[in-house]
């Protein structure tokens, strides 16, 4: 049952039920019909009915079952209008199972299967995260579009197309076979991380939609962990996001100025969230396989080591970057590794690594590459080159606060 807390008014309860069970109800219907769009329509009709019915007749004992019953009736109405024979067989199956849920008052949780559908290899990778946010959390296309910096109409179309594809190609609502699970789960986790990243790139936290998105992504990952408790990479991703989220507000001063990680005051980090992250990472480490998300979380863990010792554990951080570089060919990982190397082996060693990366076209327009280069050049007393690199970094940065920060570093070099 949904925990209604202190909410007593029917509209408020409808809201709480919607928030807690939208994805579950949608997954229950869609898993039995294969049609997400139709299930969404029926469910939104049902919630509208609840808003007009509950204030008059009171909140039903089992709000979820009530909503399912109304959603089914709405589906029947629509099916009658469409008069399609094809729809009748999944409908009968749904009806039978729904009867079962009313007596047992327990609705099977198909949200995990729905997430695997959203991140199916047959779905365009860039629409997986938006699709998951819409189906599991019930976010509308306009909200999702704003978080992913795309036009609402475009985002709406892409979501509609993906749902049509799921229905027409009959992408199944079920957990992948054991042999396929690691790869398929990786796609689900990547989509969750994409949602988190979209929310994370608003450092000032002024955009509520995007800030919430990071929290929604954490919620989705918690759901995965609760349903698949022994998957180390799911725990690794959860830890990674919690570490990052714990430092959200530390990235800016009260005046809105950018604060780099190594200058953030430890007291501004969310200690409880970091503890949760450490616990998740620890549990992941007992489960056997190491992957990208666990390594990235371990990196974060070595950084927050500063809480206890006053300094980041650079040798450990370097080891994790070595391991990470072995599992990805990401130029960003190589770049960060070079910066860490400068901490353990000196600026010259770091610069030599950066020189080796200079030919990578992906880094040529990547602001952090030029900022890192500028910092190491300055430490090597190559001031003119450092100034040039800072100018390039500033020219590539979109965030005014970071531009101000880089300009301050540039001006300090005389």
């Amino acid at each position: 049952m949904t925990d209604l807390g202190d909410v007593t008014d029917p509209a408020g309860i409808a809201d709480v039920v919607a928030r807690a069970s939208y994805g579950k109800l949608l997954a229950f219907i869609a898993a039995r019909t294969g049609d997400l769009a139709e299930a969404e329509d029926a469910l939104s009709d049902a919630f509208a009915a609840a808003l007009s019915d509950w204030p008059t007749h009171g909140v039903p004992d089992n709000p979820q079952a009530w909503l399912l019953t109304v959603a089914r009736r709405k589906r029947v109405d629509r099916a009658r209008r469409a008069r399609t024979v094809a729809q009748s067989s999944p409908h009968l199956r749904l009806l039978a199972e729904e009867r079962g849920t009313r007596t047992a008052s327990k609705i099977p949780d198909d949200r995990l299967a729905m997430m695997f559908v959203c991140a199916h290899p047959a779905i365009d990778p860039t629409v997986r995260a938006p699709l998951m946010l819409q189906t599991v959390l019930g976010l509308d296309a306009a909200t999702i579009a704003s978080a992913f910096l795309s036009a609402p109409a475009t985002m709406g179309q892409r979501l509609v197309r993906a749902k049509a594809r799921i229905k027409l190609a009959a992408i199944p609502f079920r957990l992948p076979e054991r042999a396929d699970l690691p790869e398929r789960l990786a796609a689900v986790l990547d989509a969750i991380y994409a949602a988190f990243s979209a929310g994370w790139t608003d450092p000032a936290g002024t955009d509520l939609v995007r800030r919430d998105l990071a929290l929604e992504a954490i919620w989705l990952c918690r759901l995965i962990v609760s349903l698949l408790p022994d998957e180390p990479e799911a725990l690794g991703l959860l830890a990674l996001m919690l570490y990052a989220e714990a430092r959200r507000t530390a990235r800016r001063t009260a005046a809105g100025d950018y604060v780099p990680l190594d200058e953030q005051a430890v007291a501004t980090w969310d200690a409880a969230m970091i503890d949760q992250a450490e616990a998740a990472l620890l549990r992941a480490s007992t489960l056997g396989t190491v992957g990208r998300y666990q390594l990235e979380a371990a990196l974060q863990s070595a950084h927050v080591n500063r809480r206890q010792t006053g300094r980041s554990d650079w040798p450990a951080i370097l080891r994790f970057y070595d391991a990470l570089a072995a599992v990805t060919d990401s130029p960003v990982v190589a770049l960060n590794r070079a910066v860490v190397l400068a901490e353990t082996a000196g600026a010259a060693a770091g610069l030599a690594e950066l020189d080796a990366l200079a030919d990578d076209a992906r880094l040529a327009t990547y602001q952090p590459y030029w900022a890192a280069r500028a910092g190491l050049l300055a430490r090597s007393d190559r001031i003119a080159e450092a100034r040039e690199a800072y100018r390039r970094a500033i020219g590539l940065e979109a965030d005014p606060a970071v531009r101000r920060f880089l300009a301050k570093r540039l001006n300090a070099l005389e």
Partner: protein
Amino acid sequence: MQYLMLIYGNEAAMAAASEAATNERQAAYMAYGKAMTDAGVLVGGQRLRPTSAATTVRTTNGKIQVLDGPYTDTKEQLGGYFLIEAPDLDVALSWAQRCPGAAQGVIEVRPIWSM
């Protein structure tokens, strides 16, 4: 539901293949076809003659236009198809990945539009 697997491959490379390689490919297709029949998924399938035997027809404003050659000129050509019965896309894809043609070219999987 039914899915059509369209098998695309490089005709020129196939024509130039050694006899041993050709025999091996044919044996692989025989075994694959038998596996699909035994599993009860195979509805039908045929190998096509090369695109050099293809003719394209279209009518524009009532005027018939006949051209020799295939509709599209691509690096890989349509060389055959299988029609299969599968409960969902994952099952269809599991058969597509076993198709010998998937190792040499590409298999396009399309759901049949049932009426």
